[in-house]
């Protein structure tokens, strides 16, 4: 048998048996990396339970520590809050902080619930309850939070929580006629 044919056959057999270790090794490494990344991503999704594609992004940012609020939306919310458009303000704050992880934004949200729900005779319990939920978030994020907004009467979450809790309770002091001259904070 000529040598050329033998070499050709040998090469053919080597190719058929798959002795191309470098490439296969890379494929194995790629496979391991892909499987690990895939499991990490799926575990993250089932742990974070995002409800939309937009939430996948924001929850992903929270997970990797790059989450930050949308400053423009936050400023828009503050402007609406000062103009007494509390519903509009909360919509802007929700857009600014979709993950509800910023103490300042959640403080304004709680304050907006207080101001919208406050009444000289009686308060709106539904709005006050939502306010309590928001202020609890602020306390959970930063218990020592203090607002830098000089225009606000209440500057700490504890003050807002006290006001909201009092508004929700039915006490003999609710019958005090002097309550009618009480001002909204």
């Amino acid at each position, binding site marked *: 048998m000529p040598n050329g*044919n033998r070499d050709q*056959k040998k090469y053919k057999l080597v190719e058929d048996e*798959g002795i191309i270790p470098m490439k296969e090794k890379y494929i194995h490494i790629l496979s391991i990396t892909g499987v690990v990344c895939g499991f990490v991503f*799926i575990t993250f999704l089932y742990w974070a339970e*995002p409800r939309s594609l937009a939430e996948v992004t924001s929850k992903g940012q929270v997970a990797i520590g790059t989450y930050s609020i949308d400053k423009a939306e936050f400023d828009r919310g503050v402007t609406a809050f000062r103009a007494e458009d509390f519903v509009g303000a909360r919509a802007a704050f929700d857009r600014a902080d979709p993950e509800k992880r910023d103490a300042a934004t959640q403080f304004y949200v709680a304050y907006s619930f207080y101001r919208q729900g406050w009444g000289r005779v009686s308060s709106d319990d539904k709005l006050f309850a939502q306010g309590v939920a928001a202020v609890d978030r602020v306390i959970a994020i930063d218990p020592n939070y203090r607002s830098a907004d000089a225009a606000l009467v209440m500057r700490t979450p504890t003050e807002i929580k006290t006001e909201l809790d009092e508004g929700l309770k039915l006490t003999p002091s609710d019958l005090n006629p002097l309550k009618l001259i009480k001002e909204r904070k």
Partner: protein
Amino acid sequence: MQDESAIDITGDGLEPTETETRLAARRRPRPSVQQTALRTYLILPAVFLAVTLLGGLRFGAADNAFIFLKPALICLVFASAMLVLFIRGGLVDIAGWFSDEFTTVQNVANAGVLLTLFAATTQVFNSLIPERGLPFWVIGFCFLWTIWNNLFLDLDTKKLLRSIGGLFALAFFAKYLVLANLTATGDAGWLQRIFEDPAKETFTWLLDLPRYSPATGYLQFLAIALFLLGLYLTPRRSKK
């Protein structure tokens, strides 16, 4: 020299017809080793990971929001039993996936592929078993009965795949066609729903059926089809 002629693939010393047949066989496209490796180590895990992702995903009835459902413990038990079934049925040959002859990287990669198979199987059960209530117990029991029976049968790979395909098709029909059509949907108040469709509302309440968007059924159909495709692509051994 004798041995070499026995494996002569160039056609030397053969009858013309035999040579032609061998040459024709050589010309037939065969998957190269690299193609097989790509299929086993990249396409297969990707398919199974897609099933793992989609198997627990539902869409809310009111707003089509994503709902990710973690698998119940029983899904893990069923998936483990199914893996035993895959091995007994010859779909997966453990000795062909883990060996001292393989490199560590290959053994780890093989473990990764089989792990994705296990995760996908778990999520398929998560997809097919109703979430709660009486249907959960009834369909769960049917699965248990079938898998338990299959564990003691002498199944070959083809019969096993057919059996799994049939089992999953029936479960899909029960959950996403029968039960889904008995579920009242819509975001109207419960009183309005009772007046509009009392039968559906009664079944939803009695069977404790969750309300999902119709898109859920389409998505789960895709997940199950992908899983069956993945099983079809799964080689018995990682290396020929």
